[in-house]
């Protein structure tokens, strides 16, 4: 399935390292605008999206990538949610690498995913949750693979072309989970300083590994912290500034997905969205959603206005209640 040379680039640890070696690793200013950040994504990129499912999804960045009408992207995300549906509907992705795709139990199997995958418009390459996590981790470690005990024996092995490796000590056969070096990482965090040092509250998902694995790292942050705040809590920093290429200050940057402790996901919004899909079919419903939520509002604040302050405040209260 697919071009083997292209696939080789996924785990080419030498090439991935040379890319980093050629790049400045600055402790300096990283703050910029959403469109300037998203301009670093080009057609054909392997794009890793941080967070997981509807948690801490970098939706402001995803939206900007869609507004820039990018094409032929490969989306990599462990649990893929509405952002993946929008990317499919917008014609931005040709391949999705994931362990699971839908919104969540109450909304059933994703009809958008079924439509684009069953028709062959998008290839869905499935890896186990741990295996995909280890693909990022191997890349973060700068090695072409890590051994593991998962996925073996299953039909998933053939899907992604995973190989095995013999342990040189015991002789046992283990899964050799290949590294996955993304071209770009899109991440959303709780706090960052202007130099790109990032801190995350609650569950960390895989963002730290993804940041180390990618050639280019774009980050949005709920809160901009001072250099002094970073240095007062250095043990909270999970991504160092020197590997961040662009940082944008975007409160509610994951909405209507959740951000731990700050706002809960807007389940009613998901319900309205899936009702529209049920009523009008995946293509028309997603096209309409894209028109209203992605292409029409040019600024992120305009986008948030579509939800309204009252709804945002309600989701904030619910998050506080659940995490305090």
């Amino acid at each position: 399935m697919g071009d083997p040379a292209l696939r080789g680039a996924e785990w080419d640890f030498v090439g991935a390292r040379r890319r980093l070696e050629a790049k400045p690793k600055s402790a300096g200013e990283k703050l910029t605008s959403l469109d300037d950040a998203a301009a670093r994504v080009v057609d054909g990129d392997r794009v890793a999206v941080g967070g997981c499912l509807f948690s801490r999804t970098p939706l402001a960045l995803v939206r900007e990538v869609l507004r820039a009408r990018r094409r032929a992207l490969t989306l990599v995300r462990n649990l893929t949610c509405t952002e993946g549906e929008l990317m499919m509907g917008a014609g931005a992705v040709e391949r999705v690498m994931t362990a699971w795709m839908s919104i969540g139990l109450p909304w059933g199997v994703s009809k958008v995913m079924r439509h684009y995958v069953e028709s062959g418009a998008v290839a869905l390459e499935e890896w186990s949750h741990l295996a995909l996590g280890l693909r990022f981790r191997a890349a973060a470690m700068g090695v072409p693979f890590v051994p593991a005990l998962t996925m073996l024996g299953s039909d998933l092995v053939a899907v992604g072309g995973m190989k095995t490796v013999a342990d040189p000590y015991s002789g046992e056969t283990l899964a050799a989970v290949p590294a996955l070096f993304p071209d770009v990482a899109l991440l959303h965090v709780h706090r960052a300083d202007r130099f790109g040092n990032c801190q995350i509250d609650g569950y960390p998902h895989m963002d730290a590994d993804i940041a180390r694995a990618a050639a280019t790292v774009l980050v949005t942050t709920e809160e901009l912290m001072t250099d002094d705040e970073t240095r007062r809590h250095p043990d909270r920093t999970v991504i160092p500034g020197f590997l961040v290429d662009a940082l944008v200050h975007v409160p509610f940057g994951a909405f209507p997905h959740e951000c731990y402790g700050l706002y809960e996901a807007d389940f009613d919004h998901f319900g309205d969205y899936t009702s529209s899909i049920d009523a009008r079919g995946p293509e028309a419903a997603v096209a309409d959603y894209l028109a209203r939520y992605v292409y029409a509002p040019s600024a992120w604040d305009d986008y948030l206005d579509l939800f309204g302050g009252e709804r945002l405040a309600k989701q904030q209260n619910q998050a506080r209640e659940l995490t305090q």
Partner: protein
Amino acid sequence: MTQPFTSAELLAIMGSRVLRDDTTVFAGVGVPLLAAALAQQRHAPNLTMVIEGGIIGPRIKPGRLPISTNEMRAAHRAQMLPGITDTFLFAQRGFLDYGFMGGAQIDQYGNVNTSVLGTDYWKPKVRLPGTGGANDIASLCKEVIILTAHEKRRFVPRVDFVTSPAWLDGGDARRRAGLPFGGVSRVVTTLGVFGFDPQTRRMRLDALHPGVSREQVREHTGFPLLEAPSVAVTEPPSADELAMLRTLDPERRFLG
């Protein structure tokens, strides 16, 4: 069945009884989480729930049950939030005693399909959501328990696609595939409790729920079932178990 409980309640209660104290369990959202929470309240106070979103030791809030394994409701009052990869690595290292699973198709060797219906992966008849953490739970936990409605279309001779490996083709196939640990030990369904023959690894009827006949089971199973030398009858859900379970999901979001 005419008992005053739903299928989901039956599965949650039967599932909870499997869990011993001083152990750890990988619990997915819905019935598995309710089974684990019930065990913790009833007979396993030192059980630790682990949720694949990267959550250890949460206290589930009645009325605010999580919809996904990666959200604040799942993390409510957790003791640790180690991240997804590290959470599965706890299982790979051997720290996870139990894992719960379900699936669109289950075969006579306990293998589960949650990926595609149809024979060509790249051109599926039906594309399902995928493994999520199920493959990892099936590969890495010390013991895996399948909780599922018992339907003929679900219990197939051979799954279309092995998403989560149990005993593969039976015998020592699992070991030979490079999976030295774990495996599915029990399948708890709406009709009974099933194990696997220790040699062939074929599915075996171990116990029937009260009022269920062998014939009913065979009728709803798409492959020939082995039978334990003496097939037991399960103890029905007690009033106590039902009451406790129902306080966990007062809105009956998952209890049906």
